[in-house]
């Protein structure tokens, strides 16, 4: 029978490990959500890349990332920033990148004056706040924040996404491990399925290693690679299928 690659199919796989009716659907949904969290805590994967376009507010240098308060970005699932760019005119289309997170806030605070005017030169993420330096933009510059975001499992059983389609057993193993711990109180069984998910030590094998390898290949496919052909580093060439690169 062909597999559907849906979230409903992942649920059915998990249910078959606990008898069909022992794992209440509400708890099962939580277990699968936890599985996605484990995966996404373990790395920044290609499906987590996204972009927020917004405009700065004149004379405002601090923006909440997770809420909409005071012209905040309202990104409650924000994980981490990738890059920041802005355009120098309100109608401009020519975006230029600004250094992001290259120094600490305390250092930036001492480099820029309070109330200093200017175009964005430096951007920092401090806890859940985006800080622009100098802190008083003089125009509502259009900006783009490229960032990693946490994602949710599909809502409907018939829906799918990249994890349910390509790595469904990662979610299933995580949910089964959760079920062994929470429902059956069987820590040995949970440990078995956790090792199927992430290997030993955790994160270096199993489904997580497959995900990371794919992520690594996608991350590097358009970049120049330098392979030492001679000299002392020749022995340290790494293959893409060597999971030890993630240490």
């Amino acid at each position, binding site marked *: 029978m062909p597999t559907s690659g849906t979230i409903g199919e992942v649920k*059915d796989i998990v249910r078959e490990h606990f008898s069909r009716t022992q794992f209440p659907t509400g708890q099962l949904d939580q277990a699968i959500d936890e599985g996605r969290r484990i995966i996404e805590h373990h790395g920044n994967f290609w499906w987590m890349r996204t972009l927020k376009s917004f405009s700065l507010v004149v004379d405002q240098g601090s923006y909440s990332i997770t809420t909409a308060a005071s012209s905040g970005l309202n990104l409650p699932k924000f994980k981490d920033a990738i890059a920041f760019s802005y355009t120098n005119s309100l109608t401009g289309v020519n975006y230029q990148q600004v250094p992001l997170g290259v120094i600490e806030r305390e250092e930036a605070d001492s480099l820029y004056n309070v109330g200093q005017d200017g175009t964005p030169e430096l951007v920092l993420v401090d806890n859940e706040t985006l800080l622009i330096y100098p802190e008083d933009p003089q125009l509502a510059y259009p900006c783009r924040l490229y960032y990693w975001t946490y994602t949710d499992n599909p809502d409907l059983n018939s829906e799918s996404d990249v994890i349910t389609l390509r790595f469904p057993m990662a979610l299933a193993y995580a949910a089964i491990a959760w079920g062994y711990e929470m429902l059956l109180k069987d820590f040995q069984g949970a440990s078995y399925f956790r090792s199927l998910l992430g290997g030993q030590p955790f994160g270096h094998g199993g489904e997580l290693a497959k995900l990371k390898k794919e992520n690594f290949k996608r991350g590097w496919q358009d970049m120049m690679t330098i392979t030492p052909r001679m000299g002392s580093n020749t022995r340290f060439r790494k293959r893409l299928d060597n999971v030890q690169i993630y240490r």
Partner: protein
Amino acid sequence: MANEVIYKHPDSGIVVTADFTDDLATDATITAGSTYTLFGSDGAVSSGLTITTSVATMILTLNISGGTEGEDYLVNAKGIGATSAKTAVRVIEVRVRKNRGFGNY
């Protein structure tokens, strides 16, 4: 948690009863207005199953047919006590499967 879990083939028609005797102890019958609400796996109200109902004393009978392969539906069967006017709810989870459900067809 659902009071009952049922596997159903998308082509089958099944009869499910919700008995409110224990939930509405002071009533002898439930009203004709006793009904149901259907939810899909996303938690939203759904019309994915075809359901007709009938009432006899304390039992709400649901004739259920249809459904989408792979979907889990929650049927919230509501019994309204004829004397107490209180509402009791029994939750039935109906999982529609072509090949994974055994029994209850």
